[in-house]
């Protein structure tokens, strides 16, 4: 789809932004370019739409050398989203989104109809159409930026740190929205970020660059976490890559045991007989109510009379990852993660020790792990 063939970019002052890069990006997936600042990731991205021309080597798009295409024309066929949306302040939201269709010579009416569709697609209300960019929040502007990039339905989308200028909550929202969109649209996306967490969350493949514009590793997120190519990649991926890898294990694969689960109607005497330090009290539907410390049980009555310690949080066997399970274990007063099914009923419990065994098992067999788990928490 997008192919870099021995591409280098150096500047007259002697700095090398990209050094002999050969890379092939698959069609219909998200490739994340990640690395510290000055590693050439943005330069690499900009060579795809000729915002930067390589010093040597060739870049081709669908088998065609991009230098054969007139630059503005090439760019109209490639969506582009930048960090500070870069919306045109003098145009309404609708006309911003209609930019590329209008450049392509569509009629104003058709371009606006298309823009209205896209406004809805990125989850913005219709009444925003007539507003100007300065009347929108940063997150909303970024959504418009994405809509504008999708204007003429380009097969390729370039995104240069699109979510890094908004606060973490909005960022998480935009990322989730982005994943949803991609499931629908199946674009070939090249995404630049300096944030390895974002790379792992969004990427189907990740290219890690090191300072000096050298490609350090090109791999799936799982492989990157399990088998970093060298110390640089290992360092960049971070100290907690072991825990992060749990994101790729479905919570449904975690072994659970029954644990001390008792209904609220259980008599205290019977509860004491279980001889556990903590008792998980559930209602009639096995939905968890809280943890009861055995040492503080009332003298008589049922568990309904016991004072309960809040759960922390549970994890869902459908949808959550093993990472959420581990987090749940660490936050639980009983040090036990509580796994629930789709209805919220308790299926079983596991402690951190048992959960980390899952991670250890994964390390041993990287090949079986190449496909990203569907139900991970990204």
């Amino acid at each position, binding site marked *: 789809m997008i192919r870099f063939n021995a591409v280098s970019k150096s500047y007259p002052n002697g700095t090398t932004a990209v050094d002999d890069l050969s890379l092939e990006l698959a069609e219909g997936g998200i490739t994340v370019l990640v690395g510290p600042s000055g590693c050439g990731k943005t330069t690499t991205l900009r060579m795809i739409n000729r915002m930067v021309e390589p010093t040597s080597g060739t870049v081709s798009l669908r088998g065609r050398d991009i230098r054969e295409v007139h630059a503005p024309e090439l*760019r109209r066929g490639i969506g582009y989203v930048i960090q500070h949306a*870069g919306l*045109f302040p003098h145009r309404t939201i609708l006309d911003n989104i209609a930019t590329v269709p209008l450049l392509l010579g569509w009629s104003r009416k058709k371009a606006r109809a298309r823009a209205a569709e896209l406004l809805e697609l990125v989850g913005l209300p219709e009444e925003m159409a007539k507003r100007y960019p*300065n009347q929108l929040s940063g997150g909303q502007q970024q959504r418009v930026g994405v809509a504008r990039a999708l204007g003429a339905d380009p097969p390729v989308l370039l995104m240069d740190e699109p979510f890094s200028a908004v606060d973490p909550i909005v960022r998480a929202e935009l990322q989730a929205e982005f994943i949803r969109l991609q499931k629908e649209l199946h674009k070939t996306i090249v995404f630049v970020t300096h944030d390895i967490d974002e790379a792992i969350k969004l990427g189907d493949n990740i290219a890690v660059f090191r300072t000096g514009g050298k490609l350090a590793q090109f791999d799936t997120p799982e492989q990157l976490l399990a088998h970093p190519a060298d110390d640089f990649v290992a360092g960049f991926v971070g100290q907690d890559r072991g825990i992060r890898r749990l994101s790729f294990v479905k919570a449904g694969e975690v072994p659970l045991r029954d644990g001390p689960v008792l209904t609220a109607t259980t008599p205290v005497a019977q509860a004491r007989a279980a001889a556990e330090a903590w008792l998980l009290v559930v209602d009639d539907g096995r939905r968890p109510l809280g943890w009861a410390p055995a040492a503080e049980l009332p003298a008589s009555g049922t568990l309904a009379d016991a004072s309960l310690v809040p759960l922390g949080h549970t994890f869902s066997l459908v949808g959550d990852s093993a990472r959420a399970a581990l987090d749940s274990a660490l936050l639980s007063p009983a040090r036990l993660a509580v796994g629930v099914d789709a209805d919220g009923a308790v299926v079983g419990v596991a402690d951190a020790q048992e959960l980390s065994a899952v991670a250890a098992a994964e390390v041993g067999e990287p090949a079986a792990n190449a496909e990203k788990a569907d139900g991970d928490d990204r």
Partner: protein
Amino acid sequence: MSDGEPLVRWQWIGDHAGELADYTGVHLRLGLLPVLFGLIVSVPLGIACHRWRWLYAPVLTVTNILYSIPSLALFMIFVRYTGLTERTVMIPLTLYTLSVLVPNVVDGLASVPEPVRQAATALGFGPVRRVVQVELPIAVPVVIAGVRVAAVSSISLVAVGQLIGQGGLGYYITRGLQLDFPTPIVTAIVLIMLLALTTDALLVLAQRLLTPWSRNKVTSS
């Protein structure tokens, strides 16, 4: 001024209403056409200075030197070529506007945020289209701020043209001085000020209509 002569004889104004209107029209033409011509020169010149930064310093020096030449001297120079005509007044006034308009066009273009410029390029605007459809419209508020200054100063400078017999309402000022008669002087000054203020108000209105996007800086979340 002789004793007992009032500052304004209303009778005189009434008698000369038609003539005053004619001179006001001439004054407006002499004051505003130079701003229009100045703008026609400044926009391409400003774009060039923005595109090639090295050009800006010499251009700025030249426009400032032009501005520093007394209007009387300029009139005398141009009289040789264009005679005692309106053109002889309008050419210096046009040159004067450049020292305000060129920097404002350059500043206006510089006010375009870099992400906007980059986005325009990345979305497939060619260089000319980008300037015309994106950069110039965004520069409009800054350019109009310059036009306001240029228009007001040009309107008040027209009167000096009376030295070569082309001063619009300036005619009444010299006339009043010659006759030792204050009414035409006061009338002319008031009319010139009114012209300047009205022009300025209209330009503010024009800016509001041209750039609805620069208002309403309300951020909803």
